[in-house]
């Protein structure tokens, strides 16, 4: 079973994402911000990360940039999932090492399509 870390400061979004991803047969861990996510990755590197952008303490972009410099941090497939839906943000995310990008609001079909896109399912 593949392991996915869901990073979002909203517990509602984490719950929705967890339900969708568990249906797709993922084992889920959660983090509320980039710092927590980084600690979770250092503990156990996940196969996939669903990543919000705007979060307190450490935002998604800073987390991703830091992660990609860590040992083994190039491994996880990172899918942004954010309300930032303009080309400038998308481009910054890709440059920082994001593999895919979901613009909120999202549904099961979109998550499934994007995870298929990057070969996770």
């Amino acid at each position, binding site marked *: 079973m593949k392991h996915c870390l869901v990073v979002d400061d909203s517990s509602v979004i984490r719950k929705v994402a967890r339900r969708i991803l568990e249906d797709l047969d993922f084992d889920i861990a959660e983090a509320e911000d980039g710092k927590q996510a980084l600690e979770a990755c250092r503990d156990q590197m996940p196969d996939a990360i669903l990543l919000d952008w705007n979060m307190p303490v450490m935002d998604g972009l800073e987390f991703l940039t830091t992660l990609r410099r860590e040992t083994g941090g190039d491994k996880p497939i990172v899918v942004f999932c954010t309300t930032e839906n303009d080309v400038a943000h998308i481009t910054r995310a890709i440059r920082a090492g*994001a593999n895919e*990008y979901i613009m909120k609001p999202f*549904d099961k079909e979109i998550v499934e399509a994007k995870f*298929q896109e990057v070969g996770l399912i």
Partner: protein
Amino acid sequence: MTPFEYDFLRRLLKTQSGLVLSDEKQYLVESRLLPVARRAGLGSLSELVAAIQKPSGKQLSDSVVEAMTTNESFFFRDKTPFDHFREVMMPDLLSARAGRRRIKIWCAAASSGQEPYSLAISLKEMAAKVAGWSVEILGTDLSNEILDKARNGIYSQFEVQRGLPIQMLVKFFAQKGELWQINPDIRAMVKWRKFNLLDSFAGIGEQDIVFCRNVLIYFDQQTKIDILHKIARLMPSDGYLVLGAAETVVGLTDAFQPVQGRRGLYQLKAAAATKPVGPRLAAVGGSNAR
């Protein structure tokens, strides 16, 4: 809706579009046609049926046919047909048509345009290989309304997130508020035309590649056979037919046979049987004598 009214709509759809509705599809008819009735200021499907039968009912019956035959679509739907396009069809035809340098592609149920645009994007991605070639994409659909949408190439955030990798979205689309419009150079690669698959294919002309996906399922056996034979006749002997993931020619026609190891991809029987191994120089200039 009374059984009599349902029968009336069934007959209307069968004669105008070939769409065959079984007894248990009443819910589908209701969910698709209530909005049509409402837009026309009618309170129920019974009123809609009555209004269609008036001398002034032609426009309304067209709206009914459009509403029932419009399909959901997304970019690079099912993925594999587009792999076949890049890996089999295009390399083969680029070699076979090296003299003429012209390839014609027809999307026979283009709907809101995602399939033809996915092909256009694929061609852009292989720009170096098709430089100096004329590759024409024709998108047809029964519905004018849906063709207008296709022509504009404007899609919602939901639509562009299903099947389209994010890099392609950024590269080939421009953001318009909440919506995304496919770039003018991609739009210019596709020609659109209203067309009913029940009609004569004479005006369509020869097509090297025909995408006819997820539309045959709506027709009865004989209509499926007729359409496949009409497609076979407008194809050169080395052309390609692509059907939907759940569709097949088995039990319908011997004109086509599957391409080995390529799900959903078909060639005319003679072509597949006599397929030479290397590049086919003999095909230059026309293997299309009919």
